[in-house]
């Protein structure tokens, strides 16, 4: 059992043996997260990178259509969304670290903040979608908006799944002292959430910035 950390403001409640066993087992794995989970991550990235490739190829064919579409997007909104998502990921990392250290209150706080930021991103994006439809920029408007809706729409679905996963992390937290798989679960959830923001980090410059002034 770990020694209590007296320097910390939060009292560390040592996890019971069953949780410690889970933690030790998870640390022995070659890769973080559930075994084989990176197969899913790799698959998701392949799908999204195929979108990016298709979008880029179409852009080369119709530069004027893409320049017009990009001009209708506000890069500051994109930047704001990026910062919100990255901040959310950072709080998930803090929650994973708190799990490793056995600080249950910290796990809860960090997960709540990460969840709130994730919801903020989803709501802002949903409002953005409605605004774009109202302006006539729907999925069938032209090839720029087709690619935009397809890519950001799929990303949006992944964000919603990520929010659901974080809610599961919070729900399972109630029973953490009897749950040897909690660490692996929250670590796997964190990896998924990082994938979601990694994708957005490519989506943001691709749609909002790249060649916007041309």
């Amino acid at each position: 059992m770990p020694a209590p950390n007296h320097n910390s403001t939060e009292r560390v409640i040592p996890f019971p043996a069953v949780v410690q066993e889970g933690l030790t087992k998870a640390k022995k794995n070659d890769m973080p997260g559930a075994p084989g989970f990176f197969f899913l991550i790799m698959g998701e990235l392949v799908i999204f990178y195929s979108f990016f490739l298709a979008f880029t190829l179409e852009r080369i064919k119709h530069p004027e259509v893409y320049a017009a579409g990009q001009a209708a997007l506000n890069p500051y909104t994109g930047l704001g969304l990026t910062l919100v998502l990255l901040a959310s990921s950072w709080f998930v990392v803090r929650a994973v670290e708190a799990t490793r250290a056995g600080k249950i209150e910290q796990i809860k706080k960090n997960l709540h903040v990460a969840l709130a930021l994730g919801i903020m991103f989803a709501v802002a994006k949903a409002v953005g979608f409605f605004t774009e439809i109202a302006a006539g920029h729907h999925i069938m408007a032209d090839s720029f908006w087709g690619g935009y809706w397809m890519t950001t729409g799929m990303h949006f679905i992944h964000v919603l799944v990520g929010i659901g996963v974080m809610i599961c992390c919070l729900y399972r937290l109630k029973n953490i002292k009897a749950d040897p798989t909690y660490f692996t679960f929250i670590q796997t959830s964190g990896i998924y959430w990082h994938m979601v923001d990694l994708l957005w980090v490519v989506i943001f410059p691709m749609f909002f910035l790249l060649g916007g002034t041309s």
Partner: protein
Amino acid sequence: MNTNIEAAADPKNEFKYWRIAAWCGPMFMGCYMLFWGTCHNYPPMSPALTAEQVQAIFMQDHLWFKFGMVICMSFTICYAVWSIAMSKVMGKVVGKDSILCDMQVWGGGLTAVPLLVTSAFWLSAGFRPEMPATQVQLLLDTAWMLLDLAYSTTTVQMFAMGVAWLSDKREKPLVPAWVAWYAIWVGFAFVAEIFMPFFREGFFARQGVLNFWIEFGIWFAWAWIVSYYVIKAIPRLEQEAVTRVVRLKGRIAKIDEEGNLVASA
């Protein structure tokens, strides 16, 4: 008497038809890859074609459509039988009463329905291609909408098996974790199908790289990979069952020797 009891209690009896059912998966996939493909489905006809162009293709190759779709419709049931076999193997991991096994059977069974119905649409268009061109086009479009947008039934099946395989506590799981995650990923990746009706040309259309080559490619690969591991799991399960019975018999024999329980023989 002993012989009868042992025959009835042969632990391998439980697995008697499992292999045949599991081999239905490769049989279905082989048949579909061959005969479904002959009907202008590699890649599908573009939605950008005019009704007259679609009709011309059906008029020209109506014999292929009839032949291919009759074979496909005959073998579609193999998909459902294969799903039942997978459910049986899953039952040895999560317990046969687990809801995951039911989801596997229902998901697989319901996947067979659009496969069957869409083949019937293509067959109907090939049966009477001289009907008004827009009706031929309507049959083709409806078939593709149904085939692609009924993805959620297969997703249920994939999620159920993924979760079941991941909960295998054996030292060496029956199905590796990467296959479980692959199944979950394919089920999840199918969500991209929801955008298909919005495109007639390009990457995201029904004949495009994403909707056809990637989505169908990963589905075909999933079916072959899962079939391989499910077929491979059956002898292991038989061996596990035999080992259990031998242990049980050993215990009874020991009791006999001590005189506490006398065997009927």
